[in-house]
């Protein structure tokens, strides 16, 4: 301890204190302060950038989600449109079928009427022809000799064969 005190140099102490305080003041003002401020600013800017990136990422996610939603909505709409179209198509087809059926029925009915009409006409004509033929046959029979039964029969068949039913 005594050696410490005897070694203690007042001059060195004074110089050290003065010089150190000057150094402290100068470095604080011109070195540490700007350095720490700059580092702080950089740290803050990095933090902000990270935050910004996070926000952007979240926004992107949101955007994507809304995109997906929109897409889904479009798909749904398309589906419903398709469904509607299909229904309309079916309706139209059904309607067409019904109409066709109706038309067909109508045509059929009219055809049937026509046939009936033609038939009646044909029968009428047939009747007239049969009457004509009958007269012709009767004429032939009467003109030929009616000797035996076979001959009579033959003549009837021949007569019938001769008659052309067209």
């Amino acid at each position, binding site marked *: 301890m005594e050696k410490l005190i005897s070694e203690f140099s*007042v001059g*060195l*102490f004074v110089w050290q204190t003065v010089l150190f305080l000057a150094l402290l003041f100068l470095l604080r003002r011109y070195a540490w*302060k700007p350095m720490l401020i700059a580092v702080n600013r950089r740290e803050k800017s990095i933090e902000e950038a990270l935050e910004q990136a996070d926000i952007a990422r979240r926004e992107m996610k949101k955007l994507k989600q809304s995109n997906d939603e929109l897409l889904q909505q479009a798909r749904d709409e398309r589906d419903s449109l398709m469904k509607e179209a299909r229904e309309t198509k079916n309706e139209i087809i059904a309607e067409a079928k019904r109409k066709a059926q109706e038309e067909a029925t109508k045509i059929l009915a009219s055809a049937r009427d026509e046939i009936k009409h033609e038939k009646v006409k044909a029968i009428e004509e047939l009747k007239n022809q049969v009457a004509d033929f009958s007269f012709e046959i009767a004429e032939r029979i009467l003109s030929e000799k009616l000797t035996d039964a076979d001959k009579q029969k033959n003549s009837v068949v021949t007569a019938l064969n001769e008659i052309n039913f067209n």
Partner: protein
Amino acid sequence: MRSRIIYSLVLFALIFNPFVGTAQHSELAEDGLTLQEEIKLDIRHHLQDGHDYHLFTDESTGSHYGFPLPVILVDEGVHFFMSSAFHHDEEVAESNGKFYAVYHNKIYRTDAEGTLSFDADHHPTNVKPLDLSITKNVFHIMVIGLLMIVLFGRAANNYKNDLVPRGAAKFVEPIVLFVRDEIARPNIGEKSYRKYMGFLLTVFFFIWIVNLFGLTPLGVNINNSVAVTFALALITFLITNLSGTKTYWLHILDPLGKSMPWYGKLGIYPLLVPIEILGIFIKPFALMIRLYANITAGHIVMMSLLGLIFIFKSWIGSPLSFGLAFFIGILELLVAALQAYIFTMLSALYFGSAAAEPHHDH
């Protein structure tokens, strides 16, 4: 490859070491000292401050190499002259009609012949003027201060246009961030660490750079002067107590707080409070002694090991002690940073207690 080059350099230095040659010649120096005594004196001289910047002495011619430094004395007026007037502490210097002589590195006022009178303890009784000389140590403080201003000023300048560290800032920034994030923030607290940063950074770099300078061949480590470590510790002490909050003083004067009723405190406080008050002074005192003792001890060990080279003078002993000195040198490199860290760290701890916030459990 590189280690081989270093190895051969070391070997070369060992074989052709000029000091080995001179040491062999001066086994018994002129003043009749043995080699051991001479080395002892050399070590003591090396640890001491000096009024001129003495680099080395050529023993064979007796000429000293170095340069003089200004001497400033306050003795009924200011005296200013160069230390060369003392002629390496051997002659009397005259200034404004007063005579001064150097004895054991201290300046005393004498008569024209330089007579010193001694008391019974062999201390000079002559008048000791206030010595404000730019001694070797003061010169070093100035050099290191300038170096720090240039280095850190340049580093700070870098941030003016660019937030990315370049050049000097690239080296300084990690250490600054280390002091901030590992020393100041955890010990002082997020709230008030900012105002102590200037001192912590300055003291950290100052001690570290001073210690590193001490490891150069110049070997001048100003931290082995109590005056220097005392000045540093005193600033820590002043900052701690001048920035002490109400809570800090309450912890000292009423350490137990609400954990004990007043009648219980009556018994224990006469002991506790003086201890706490003593603690205010012991903490910086420990700072001062720790730094001083570590650096001084390191230098004594290293120089003694180097001195052993000249005592052994053998092909086995000398390389061995050189290797030991080399090892201690590496260790000192670590100690240089470690002591700076410890001083800063403990200062931060004291500042942390001074800046204590109220309402926390104790």
